[in-house]
């Protein structure tokens, strides 16, 4: 029983980290209809900036978190304006290639600035350790991750479904030219949505640094994971991405505990099975 709970806690928190990082990708791909292989790069840069801020400037975890999210979001703006915008109308292969090029450049840049070893991110003392509830011990950090994930999910759902911003984004995606004629500034909207996605990736990168350690190879290594979550969940759906992230997180963790032999491919097997049966993902509409 304890094993099951451990698997659940670890799996869910891993899934939550995947969710927070991947939801930005799901939104940009689902709403903006553009493939962005470099999304993991934003998570990576966010993590590195936070680590740098705490190690070099002694900043507190919270400050470092905010700084990195904002910094990455700002960084994503010129990237969207100068690079992404040029390939919105091009085919998927061109978008894939451009963003793969971007990842390579990001990885090289990070290595240049931070070196090529794994960088540790210290979490504050009040988050270390565990709490005990009803005879079960939960690491506090995992609770934070869980809370953060749910917060992001709820906030995004509200943003997309209820606020004018969300409505505008959805309208712009459904029909950009009509949206423009009613006064929606589509290019600015795209930039905002992209920046939001990047910021979320940075958030996930920082929060998840314990589970997905920072190293320059981060972006490429975990790229497949983020893409897996997004495709399995269905592009552009908050609920779908959350479900897929939790599902894959738990499966991966369970495999590590119970079937270590196939642990490294458990996730891929799951993805293979789901996509073969439901090519648009668990909750996806026709793309």
């Amino acid at each position, binding site marked *: 029983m304890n094993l099951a709970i451990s698997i659940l806690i670890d799996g869910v928190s891993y899934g939550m980290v995947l969710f927070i990082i991947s939801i930005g990708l799901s939104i940009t*791909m689902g709403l903006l209809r553009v*493939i962005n292989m470099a999304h993991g790069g934003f998570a990576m840069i966010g993590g590195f900036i936070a680590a740098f801020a705490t190690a070099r400037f002694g900043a507190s975890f919270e400050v470092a978190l905010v700084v990195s999210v904002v910094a990455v979001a700002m960084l994503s703006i010129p990237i969207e304006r100068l*690079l992404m915008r*040029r*390939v919105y109308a*091009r085919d*998927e*292969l*061109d978008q*894939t*290639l*451009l963003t*793969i*090029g*971007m*990842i*390579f*450049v*990001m*990885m*090289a*840049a990070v*290595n*240049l600035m931070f070196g*090529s070893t794994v960088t540790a991110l210290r979490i504050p003392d009040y988050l270390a350790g565990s709490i005990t509830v009803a005879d079960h011990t939960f690491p506090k950090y995992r609770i934070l991750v869980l809370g953060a994930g749910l917060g992001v999910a709820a906030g995004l759902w509200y943003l997309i479904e209820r606020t004018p911003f969300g409505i505008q984004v959805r309208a712009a995606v459904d029909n950009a030219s009509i949206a423009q004629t009613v006064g929606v500034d589509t290019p600015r909207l795209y930039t905002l949505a992209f920046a939001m996605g990047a910021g979320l990736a940075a958030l996930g990168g920082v929060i998840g640094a314990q589970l997905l350690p920072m190293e*320059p190879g981060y972006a490429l290594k975990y790229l*497949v994971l983020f*893409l*897996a979550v997004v*495709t399995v969940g269905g*592009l552009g759906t908050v609920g779908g991405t959350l479900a897929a992230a939790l599902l894959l997180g738990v499966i991966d963790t369970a495999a590590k505990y119970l079937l270590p*032999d*196939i642990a*490294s*491919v458990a996730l*891929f*097997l799951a*993805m*293979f099975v789901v*996509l*073969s049966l439901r*090519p*648009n*993902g668990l909750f996806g509409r026709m*793309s």
Partner: protein
Amino acid sequence: MSEIVCDEAERSPMGVQVPLWREAVVLGLGLAAYYTFPDDLAFLTNVLVTALFVLSLSLVLGQAGIATLGHAAYFGIGGYAAGLFAIHTLSDPIAGLLVAGGAGGVAALLSGLVLLRTHGLTFLMLSVAFVQICHEVANRAARITGGDDGLSGIVPGPLFGAFDFDLYGRTAYLYALGVLVISYLVLRKICEAPFGLTCRGIRSDRLRISALGGNVYLHLLAVFSLGGVFAGFAGALSAQSAGVAGLSGLSFAFSGNALVMLVLGGVRKLHGALVGTIVFMVIQHIAATINPYHWLFIIGAMLIGSVLVLPTGIVGLADTIAISVRRRVQRRGREP
């Protein structure tokens, strides 16, 4: 106003029709390299092997528009098949080559049955999942494949029963060159035939082909399997020339590298694969001493530049230059 006609037919830059001139050029360059760099044959053989692999990718991606990152699976499977065949059954290299092609083709066919029911991003992800799964299976089946260390002790028998694979790699190089040139010829002929034309139609507009009565799924299955066959050949060459078949060939990273080489050279024409491979690997060889992350930066910048500035690759650039030169020559010829 003449325009670029996108076909693979016999059209030399000078406007003169010489049959098989492309193959002759490849053969010539290969032999020139052989005599010029006798100490670098191992590296050059690797270039030939990779060129064949990228050529098989060009068939699948460039001709039919199947964007896959899992193609290396068939390379790796071919390598292991050739290796196991040489160790346990027959050491004749040509036989091993054919077995590997068969293995690659069958693997592509079986995986294609599932994969090709999807397209776009889903297909891409499934192809990645497939190669990762194969990688892991090969890793686990260490008793058969040698796992992380690879399958070693592959000693190919004498080529045609007469030419031993020597220590300097001379036979291996010429053998690989021969296979590459013949494969290029075969693939080019296939692309010029109705099969290739239909592939390009599918790449352009799948639904239109259906509306013309074509079965897109079956056709894609055929070209995908064919791509697997030639990827298998490349895997066999790799195993036979290096004496070992390893996991590095059976990886998503290798697929990705091949894709970069193909894009660099030019996706639309088959010979883009050859040009791109040579350029990429030579630069990488020279830059090998530099920090690998600087190399990554160069490749990343090249990819970005390629997509934004030079979408048809080096070959496309060469074609554009050739056309404007030809036009200028024609205009001058018309002047009194």
